[in-house]
């Protein structure tokens, strides 16, 4: 098909032009094939997400007769029952109470430590820094079991404070590394100028340097928020009684108890992923920056 117009025009145009057109036609069909392949891949990628949305928004009767038929009916009944009977309103609250404080503390402490390691010579810096590096290398698995008994004897097991502290400590190594890189890139002249103007060291830190790394801190905040929101192991291990249960643990508990309630389960899954998708779409740049540097760590 693609060759036809070229063949027709052959009589009227010079062979050079024909050659050029044939090349152009081949290139554009080539591009179309590429986009078709990509769109097919994208559809495969999106399908499970669409399945969650579709199942969550069906009528309960439709879920019973054909649970996974795509968008065959519409009702908010599943969302309502997940929110009330399913307990997802309190799971959501616990997710916020676990994610927001831990993220805020990680940002503050990482910014402080990142500056110290990047620009302030102090005794013991190397030792502490090596321990922080070690935190990037050693998997959480290594110490998660002893940490359980440590939290128990500290009276922090099954408490929001304890779970927050674990989420903070598991994110601090990366956060410190990340912020240190931003502070290292700032020019020396900046602090020298402030020092000549008579600014104290702490003022240089708080009023000159910190504002310069706000974009880095924002990326770290988004990244930390998402990884804490998605964390499964920490609530599973350190909030065992179910007194506090974030969305991930709530969902898992829901699958174990009443696996036949697919409608509310889908609705609960939707409640869990909607904040993630919204943050991802709105703050793409920060999210990808965080994840990309997350990859460069170590």
């Amino acid at each position, binding site marked *: 098909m693609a060759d036809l117009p070229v063949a027709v025009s052959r009589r009227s145009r010079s062979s050079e032009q024909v050659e050029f057109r044939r090349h152009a036609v081949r290139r554009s069909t080539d591009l179309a094939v590429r986009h078709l392949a*990509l769109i097919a891949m994208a559809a495969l990628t999106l399908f499970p997400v669409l399945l*969650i949305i579709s199942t969550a928004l069906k009528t309960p009767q439709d879920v019973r007769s054909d649970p996974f038929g795509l968008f065959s009916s519409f009702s908010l009944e599943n969302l309502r029952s997940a929110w009330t009977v399913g307990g997802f309103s309190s799971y959501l609250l616990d997710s916020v109470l676990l994610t927001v404080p831990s993220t805020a503390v990680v940002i503050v*402490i990482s910014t402080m430590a990142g500056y110290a390691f990047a620009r302030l010579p102090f005794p013991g810096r190397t030792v502490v820094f090596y321990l922080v590096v070690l935190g990037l290398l050693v998997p959480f698995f290594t110490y*998660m079991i002893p940490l359980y008994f440590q939290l128990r004897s500290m009276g922090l097991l099954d408490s929001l404070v304890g779970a927050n502290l674990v989420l*903070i*400590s598991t994110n601090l190594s990366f956060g410190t590394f990340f912020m240190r890189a931003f502070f290292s890139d700032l020019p020396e002249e900046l602090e020298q100028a402030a020092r000549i103007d008579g600014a104290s060291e702490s003022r240089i830190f708080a009023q000159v340097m910190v504002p310069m790394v706000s974009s880095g801190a924002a990326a770290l905040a988004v990244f930390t928020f998402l990884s804490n929101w*998605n964390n499964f192991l920490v609530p599973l291990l350190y909030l065992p009684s179910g007194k506090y249960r974030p969305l*991930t643990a709530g969902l898992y508990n829901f699958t174990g108890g009443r696996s036949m309630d697919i409608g509310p389960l889908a609705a609960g*899954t939707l409640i869990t992923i909607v904040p993630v998708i919204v943050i991802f779409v709105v703050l793409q740049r920060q*999210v990808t920056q965080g994840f990309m540097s997350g990859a460069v760590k170590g």
Partner: protein
Amino acid sequence: MGAVSNVPPVTRRAQARLGILLALPVAVITAVFFVFPMVNALYYAVVDFDGLDPTPPFVGLNNFTEMFTDSATWHALGNNAIWIGIGTAAPMIIGLLVAVLIWSSRGGGAAYRLLFFLPFMLPGVAIGIVWGWIYDPVNGWINRVLGAVGLGSWSRGWLGDPDTAIFAVLATAIWATCGFVIMIILSALRNVDVELVDAARIDGANAGQRLWHILLPQIMPVFLMVLTLTLVGGFSVFDIIFIMTGGGPADATEVLGTYAYSSAFQLNRISYGTVLALLITVLAVPFTIMLNRLQRRLSLQGLGA
């Protein structure tokens, strides 16, 4: 740091004071919630702790000898090997191909990036639940599609069948990680010398040759970095398997992570679980260090990012 020499002593003292102050929180939290439990893990490994006894008996290396003679350990390790082999190779290959496809098809790049990266952001529990539906023996989409194309005899409960369970969970994990690989490789491709690619095209190199000889060497450091991450992640895989199969059916999907968890928290064999977790560490850490070195050496040679 070279500037330290021309800084007056007063300033240097003030800097040291502030440095200690600013690094104190990270030092304290790292000591209490990382170093202390890590040292404790070494202690747990040489005693027999059941979670209750405040003075557990010293058993020397018994936990270790038990681990190496335990056939369940080797079975789990074998599953880790399958997981690492396929779970590293597949996302790398798919990710590389899709990234090059996006890179070379001008237009739509931002939209594709967004779409492909989305699964990587989602919580493992949500991913496990929805893929559980896709694999459902009765209503699942895989069996529906198989039935529609006349392969209904292949239908099965993909997660309930010991022969397919590990591969079914793996496929889910591959679906979730491809977007990450695509993203990283795309960012590396941005620094690739396009003139080299065009020159190769004019010289008659086909798409495969251009990919292998021109593109891949230029993005090698980033490629190795992604390899490190997926490899190391493969040793400590836990969430997705625990959620989708819990290690079953009949231990078919048991990996070191789920075996360590169930030993410690379901059978109260705290010490044995700790030793299994240490095995994960011992296996994963050298790979992290080795591949990072390789990657750093390559970037020192001025290749890629």
